[in-house]
């Protein structure tokens, strides 16, 4: 089966009405037409713009967080028979032309899960994000035993085996650590590939993208531990 016909690209989105349309078009231009947008309770026109651009749009009636939106997207891809599912941030920070790199790594059997790493390439990354990521990587390594350069990336790919086995239960940023713990639990193969990143000049302050402050990082770690005990 043609790679691109069985590959679904998932965009968890919150208030990305200004950019989602053009991002979907860019993804189509690089040859991926199965696009699922999960509108995570946006109050702008994200849903309409994504639908206009030709994506399959699913809507959360209230904002649940990037983890929940990713879960919904991956569940939808599974139900629709995806062989590969790729998640990509809806704010345009990732380059759609690099989707093929992640998919190729899965196709050649390098891994079951591929993480696009912002830190394996020269990228203009704000210092506070670097610090937060280092702490998150350390926290994830302690819990999972897997050492990665970028555990908080939103650019990931999963093959069918990983889609079937991974169970994401956490809703906000703590799900990034949970994915790695699930990979360790199911002994899946995880590889990192270098990706480019471009941050907007005025980052929005919204739940999907405010996780990089130190206070949010501590809150995320505490929430991960509490949820691990309750679920």
């Amino acid at each position: 089966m043609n790679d691109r016909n069985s590959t679904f690209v998932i965009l968890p989105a919150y208030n990305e009405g200004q950019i989602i349309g053009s991002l979907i078009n860019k993804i189509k231009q690089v040859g991926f037409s199965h696009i699922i947008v999960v509108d995570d309770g946006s109050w702008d026109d994200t849903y309409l713009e994504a639908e206009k651009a030709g994506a399959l749009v699913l809507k959360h009636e209230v904002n649940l967080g990037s983890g929940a939106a990713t879960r919904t997207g991956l569940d939808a891809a599974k139900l629709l028979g995806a062989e590969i599912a790729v998640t990509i941030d809806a704010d345009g920070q990732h380059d759609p032309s690099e989707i093929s790199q992640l998919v190729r790594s899965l196709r050649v059997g390098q891994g079951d899960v591929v993480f696009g790493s912002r830190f394996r390439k020269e990228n203009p990354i704000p210092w506070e994000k670097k610090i937060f990521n280092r702490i998150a990587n350390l926290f994830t390594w302690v819990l999972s035993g897997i050492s990665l350069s970028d555990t908080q990336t939103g650019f990931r790919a999963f093959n069918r085996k990983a889609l079937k086995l991974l169970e994401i239960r956490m809703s906000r940023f703590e799900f990034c650590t949970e994915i790695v713990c699930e990979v360790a639990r199911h002994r899946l193969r995880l590889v990192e590939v270098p990706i480019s990143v471009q941050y907007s000049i005025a980052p929005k302050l919204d739940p999907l993208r405010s996780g990089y402050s130190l206070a949010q990082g501590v809150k995320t770690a505490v929430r991960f531990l509490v949820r691990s005990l309750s679920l």
Partner: protein
Amino acid sequence: MAIYQILVPIISLIFIAEAFSKFRQGKRRVKVFLVWIFFWVLIGAIALFPKISYLIAKISGFEDNVNALIFTGLGTLFYLLFRLLLYIETLDEKINQLVRSKALSELGFNGPNRSEKPKPQTSEN
């Protein structure tokens, strides 16, 4: 008899009566009702018979009865707070499941027996 030994038991009785009333009206669950009753009976009892605090100190291993009460109280509060956090997380997960199920129902699957898959509603290049 000190004035707190009159006031505190009266306040305890008022809260106990209120708890009974809410329980009979079905506004309070058994577990919460029992914990509430136990708490106010203990407060009233300690006010009437302060030697109970020495008994708590002896059981818990504290030398001083005031420390025993403070640390026992704090420990109980932290435990209850933790249980509350776990309950909130459970509720949060249930809300998540509801919202996500509704979103996925837009794919057109009919309930748990999802034998038939609809075609993806995307435009092909």
